[in-house]
């Protein structure tokens, strides 16, 4: 059998698409001018940055002047949450509402703020991995500065009721931020209609390169800078503009958002085929709501098969997948997301995340469906706790 290579970890990162690569290449090579410089080489770079800003704005239903380029999704999250907290603390608002299963870029930021004296409410997400709007409403207080709730979870792919939360926050006059890093391109987003005040996204999840992000901030929202310095990004985010990556992100978001229903129609049947097939493995379970989930997300647990061993075995079979989020590899703790939806430590240790997209085909799916049961079987046979 020829060894097949199947990349099924698209929530960790994606391959730069050819269209995006071709768009960015001239700005890495000949178009190296500083976008703030006055000569032609710089002006052209400046115009390219502004075109990309427009592309991002159009994809989100925002104005270009509301788009700020950052160095990554984590930076956007940190800026939004720390910025809002510090801004509104001056008005006596020192309470933040979030969920227990946010990405660490939000959770660790909230924990850092707690050390500074802020109070944070971590809402539960129940067995289906979806926060309840009523819980948000109950948690809002006089001194609530910010609600920050992710659009779609990066591990179990569950999509949150963002429009309702947005409407609620607008009504209650509380700022609302959403980490949409996993949602962009998979869910139609309109920041105006959905009453989103701030939104984070990251290029490398949508076929742009790593190391470029965006923070959308609604006109009128002014928070302290995270990175002070030169006058770039209208004085709100310093650092020489990363022109090539900005151009790439502009193109990538345009492509990602041009046919979201088409993507869902193509990818979700493949996702369901995997879930249905792997559900036949004894002692398995699907994590997170089956319907309200990202079109490419499969997250399952197999008791008796440890997650990392599963991944290494799949790698030997040419399949790239993950268990929990990539950035917590190296930690011994089981996924906080899986614990949040009620899994025990034991079960959480044996979980697998497969994230496919439109670049995957049926042959990939078949390879996954064939391989995973064999690998689970092999590991269980090696386990001292397992009895058939």
């Amino acid at each position: 059998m020829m060894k097949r290579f199947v990349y099924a970890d698209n929530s960790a990162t994606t391959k730069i698409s050819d269209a995006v690569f071709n768009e960015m290449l001239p700005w890495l090579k000949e178009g190296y001018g500083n976008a703030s410089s006055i000569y032609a080489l710089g002006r052209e770079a400046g115009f390219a940055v502004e075109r990309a800003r427009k592309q991002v704005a159009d994809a989100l239903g925002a104005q270009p002047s509301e788009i700020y380029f950052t160095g990554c999704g984590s930076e956007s999250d940190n800026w939004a949450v720390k910025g809002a907290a510090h801004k509104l603390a001056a008005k006596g608002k020192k309470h933040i509402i979030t969920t227990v299963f946010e990405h660490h870029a939000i959770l660790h930021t909230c924990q850092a703020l707690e050390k500074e004296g802020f109070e944070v409410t971590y809402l539960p997400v129940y067995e289906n991995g979806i926060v309840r709007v009523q819980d948000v409403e109950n948690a809002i207080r006089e001194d609530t500065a910010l609600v920050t709730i992710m659009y779609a979870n990066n591990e179990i792919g569950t999509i949150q009721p963002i429009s309702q939360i947005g409407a609620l926050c607008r009504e209650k006059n509380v700022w609302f931020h959403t980490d949409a890093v996993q949602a962009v391109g998979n869910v139609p987003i309109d920041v105006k209609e959905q009453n989103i005040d701030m939104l984070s996204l990251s290029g490398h999840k949508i076929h742009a390169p790593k190391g470029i992000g965006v923070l959308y901030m609604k006109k009128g929202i002014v928070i302290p800078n995270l990175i002070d310095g030169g006058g770039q990004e209208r004085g709100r985010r310093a650092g020489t503009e990363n022109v090539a990556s900005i151009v790439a992100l502009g193109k990538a978001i345009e492509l990602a958002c041009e046919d979201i229903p088409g993507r869902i129609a193509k990818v979700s049947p493949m996702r369901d085929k995997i879930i249905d097939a792997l559900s036949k493995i004894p002692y398995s379970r699907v994590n997170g709501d089956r319907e309200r989930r990202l079109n490419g997300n499969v997250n399952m647990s197999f008791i008796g098969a440890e997650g990392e061993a599963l991944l290494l075995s799949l790698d030997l079979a040419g399949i790239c997948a993950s268990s929990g989020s990539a950035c917590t590899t190296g930690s011994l703790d089981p996924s906080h997301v899986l614990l949040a939806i009620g899994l025990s430590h034991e079960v959480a240790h044996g979980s697998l995340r497969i994230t496919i997209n439109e670049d995957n085909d049926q042959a990939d799916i078949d390879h996954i469906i064939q391989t995973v049961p064999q690998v689970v079987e092999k590991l269980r046979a090696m386990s001292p706790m397992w009895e058939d």
Partner: protein
Amino acid sequence: MLYSDKVLEHFAAPHNVGELPDADGVGEVGNAKCGDIMKMYIKVDDGKISDVKFKTFGCGAAIATSSIATDMIKGASIEDALKLTNSAVVEALDGLPASKVHCSVLAEQAVKAALADYYRKQGVDPTPIVGEIGECEACHNL
């Protein structure tokens, strides 16, 4: 998670996997909550470890350390097997990522636990010889 080629080799094709139904000593360490359990079976002939098998539930490093630790004690005298340290295991694997060193501790403990069981079965109190088999530090930090 930067595993050496040696770790990956042992993970891909672990040596000495299985059980010994007529084992002279069996040791099990770790727990499912922290995600690693190792069970080791030894056969002793003439003061030598004539055969050894293991079963492990755990990460890649846990499987690789089990595999190499069984290799290292197979055919060795009981005295030499008792001297197996986790750092020798790490070295034999060309290193382990910091967060995975505990797996080598587990392997050392599994060998000791199997030997302790062997002594116990011979009617000898293992504690003065093998020492106390505590839980691995990493476990306590969970």
